[in-house]
């Protein structure tokens, strides 16, 4: 059983992976990837029932994860590689021509761990609901997890899915919002204010919980708490307060690193703040 210290080490190494991948690729989305890394670390190393060697696209018999905010791909790729879905060295291939590690997740070249393409925002929650319905039809007990961004919640389809999930009582679905308050053009409040996100989800008929998404212990507790409600027919939403760019001081809390790769000097500066805990790829 992994301890919180172990998980923090994995998260730190994943952050190094993200900085190095994006730096080598020369483009990508480091800010949000760093911010959601603690969440994904808990999911892939503790919470989810999965077996990378037995992975199938249809997810039968296992938990499934969907990354609706597809631009957070570097964070996902690091978790997938380090839990054994594909060779660690493939992380060098991010965004390269012919690579399975496309700029946004794709199934076309058969990357294990990816169920559906994402990146055009607002769609992953619907797809995850479909996957959860299929599990329900098969009387499977497994969970479906999905991560959306907060800016992504400006897409109308998210709220169509919110209605549908509650109406059809899709309750083995655990959605997470990476609530970092930032989007490409600036602060979410300034671009298109989402108002009271928790009230909105509650009004749409979902169980919600606000959690510090950068605190591994709290994230673990939140999963346990929200899962205790399973069986009441309501879909679940963890509203995860995160810091964009978490772990690299000059990237923290700003939208400026949403979609920009660090140069060599910035990469070195960033890596100096992130201890190599498990060995670089």
């Amino acid at each position, binding site marked *: 059983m992994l301890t919180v210290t172990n998980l923090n080490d994995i998260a730190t190494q994943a952050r190094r992976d993200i900085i190095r991948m994006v730096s080598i690729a020369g483009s990508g989305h480091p800010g949000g990837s760093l911010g959601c890394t603690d969440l994904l670390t808990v999911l892939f190393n503790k919470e989810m029932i999965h077996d990378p060697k037995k992975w199938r*696209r*249809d*997810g*039968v018999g296992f938990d*499934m994860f969907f990354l609706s905010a597809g631009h957070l791909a570097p964070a996902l790729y690091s978790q997938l590689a380090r839990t054994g879905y594909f060779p660690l060295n493939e992380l060098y291939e991010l965004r390269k021509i012919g690579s399975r590690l496309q700029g946004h997740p*794709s*199934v*076309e070249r058969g990357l294990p761990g990816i*169920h*559906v*393409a*994402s*990146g*055009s925002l*607002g*769609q*992953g*929650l*619907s*797809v*995850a*609901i*479909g*996957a*959860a*319905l*299929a*599990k329900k*039809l098969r009387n499977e007990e497994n969970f479906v997890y999905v991560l959306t961004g907060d800016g992504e919640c400006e897409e*109308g*389809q998210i709220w*169509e*899915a919110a*209605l*549908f999930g509650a*109406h*059809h009582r899709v309750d083995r679905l655990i959605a997470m919002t990476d609530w970092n308050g930032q989007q490409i053009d600036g602060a979410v409040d300034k671009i298109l204010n989402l108002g009271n996100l928790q009230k909105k989800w509650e009004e749409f008929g979902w169980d919600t919980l606000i959690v510090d998404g950068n605190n591994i212990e709290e994230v673990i507790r939140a999963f346990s708490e929200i899962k205790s409600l399973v069986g009441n027919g309501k879909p679940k939403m963890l509203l995860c307060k995160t810091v964009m760019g978490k772990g690299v001081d000059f990237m923290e809390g700003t939208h400026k690193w949403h979609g920009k790769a660090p140069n060599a000097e910035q990469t070195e500066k960033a890596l100096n703040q992130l201890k190599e805990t498990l060995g670089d790829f």
Partner: protein
Amino acid sequence: MKEIFINTGNKDTRSGFGAGLLEVGRKNPDVVALCADLTGSLKMDAFAEEFPSRFFQAGIAEANMIGVAAGLALSGKIPYAGSFANFVTGRVYDQVRQVIAYSNTNVKICASHAGITLGEDGATHQIMEDIGLMRMLPNLTVINPCDYNQTKAATIAVADYQGPVYLRFGRPSVPNFTPANQTFEIGKAIRMIEGNDVTLFATGHLVWESILAAQELEKNGISAEVIDLHTIKPLDNITVLQSVQKTKAVVIAEEHLVAGGLGELICGTLSREYPVPVELVAVNDEFGQSGTPEELMKKYGLDAISIVEAVNRVLKRK
């Protein structure tokens, strides 16, 4: 003319879809269905009543319906997601593109009320761009059957095909003239009438009009070959070229805009492989309007008379 086609009674193709869905639902437990508040219009009620746990009402929220269908499909189900053609194509193009076509999910997009024969509701609901939109997407198979029996057969057949399908059908009652309980072969054109002077390629409601046109042309000593291209993508290029090499003149008829339609598609093939004179029977660069299906077919030149006129034009250029 050897072939004789008998209209066994007018029926709407959407009812063929509804009957096919029910039958394939009984045969295959993995078949599920979704609809965006148009269950009655799409004749999906029988399926919904018989298989309530396998039917998902999506409400007036088509984008989400497409996503949910993709999720069901990648998890091993065979979802038939239905609405009006306008609302499962143009309205949700990016959703269809990302989670169905690009993700190659086994979703059957079921598009009723396609084309101008939707009628009285007018241009907001009459999509005549959908074939173009859908055939541009890699991985997507595009099917547009011609009558009730063929639509029913196609609806059943697509369940056994692994991959995304756009299945297009319509609202009005039209002649039902192909065999009941036929086997539908995706991608295989059907030669309805053999002829030597000109080939009439048609899809959907225009197949019957082409047969009527061929019967009319025969009276003037013109032998027209009629080919039903129920599958637009992948196009049966072998049958198309075989026929054109024989007749050396072509008319293509469809209930769609010229832009992006079957006509342009075949013209592309012919210009590369075997250039011959071609005339198109389709709607030019304009929107439709309210009217009865018959009035609109006439007004927009989508009927047997227009096909005969197109044949007369193309034969002069032969």
